[in-house]
């Protein structure tokens, strides 16, 4: 009964804010991720390899809030987080605040397998990535127009209501294509 399950985010996703074209592209990317993971498992590969293969596909798609499709923070920068965990050993690796790592899931796995630590963040994590030969990219790689416009709308909304408390700003995000996501 081996297999693989994936997600590409949850939120206010309705037929009104998801065009037929975008829906088709999203479904195709999800299928591609499932097939990548299945190929690993069908050949007797490990669940860790299957998870990594599937998540990489989703990170490389501009349609999901991870990797290539990451949203922008307040300063107009893409900051990426990831984690991976091996159920058999409870080994785990996590990374946070990355700005140049193309596939954060790869680095999380290196943290788990090639370091004595569980979690690394920011510049230190990227130094570790470089030492491990994990692919780094120019931050411009993560730019997508949709995500940039989402940030501009969020900033505009924030400027319109400057007295909002930090907690009240949380539900005020205005993400891509009208759907409302957290992560």
């Amino acid at each position, binding site marked *: 009964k081996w297999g693989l399950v994936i997600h590409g985010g*949850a939120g206010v996703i309705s*037929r009104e804010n998801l065009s037929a074209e975008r829906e088709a592209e999203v479904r195709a990317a999800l299928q591609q991720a499932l097939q990548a993971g299945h190929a690993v498992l069908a050949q007797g590969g490990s669940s860790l390899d299957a998870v990594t293969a599937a998540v990489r596909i989703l990170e490389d798609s501009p349609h999901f809030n991870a990797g290539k499709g990451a949203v922008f923070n307040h300063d107009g920068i893409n900051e990426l987080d990831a984690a991976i965990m091996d159920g058999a050993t409870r080994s785990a690796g996590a990374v946070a605040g990355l700005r140049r790592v193309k596939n954060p899931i790869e680095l999380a796995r290196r943290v788990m397998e090639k370091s004595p630590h569980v979690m690394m963040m920011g510049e230190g994590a990227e130094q570790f990535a470089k030492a491990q030969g994990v692919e780094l990219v120019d931050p411009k790689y993560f730019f997508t127009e949709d995500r940039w416009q989402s940030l501009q709308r969020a900033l505009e909304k924030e400027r319109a209501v400057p007295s909002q408390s930090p907690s009240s700003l949380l539900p005020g995000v205005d993400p891509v294509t009208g759907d409302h996501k957290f992560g």
Partner: protein
Amino acid sequence: TVGAVALDQAGNLAAGTSTGGMTNKRFGRVGDSPIIGAGTYADPRCAVSATGHGEFFIRYTVARDICARVEYQSLPLPEAANIVVNDVLVKAGGEGGVIAMDRDGNVAMPFNSTGMYRGYVGEDGQPHVAIFKESEESASSP
């Protein structure tokens, strides 16, 4: 946020999650995805990857809570996942969903938002993909 959980032919489970966080976040905010036990967790019985309003998933240790209910209360995985997502989180006001598998290959994909990009593939290699609630998926099928 994206994620995957898998059960391999040797019976081992794994979980992984990756995210770009949330639009307009500040102050080095970190959500649940890299927090082991909140947005990502796996043990020999259960594996979970989450997506949603991370602050709630952290405070309610969502991924570990689901696996703990499987481990200590012997709840079926779908029931454990459903309780946490559609009862515990809903009462707290936390929006989102999870994907989960257990060591027998049982799958759960509950969410309390209007939609969740999700999919499953088993041994037969036939991918199943969905976005909206099951009722809407059925209604939209050709």
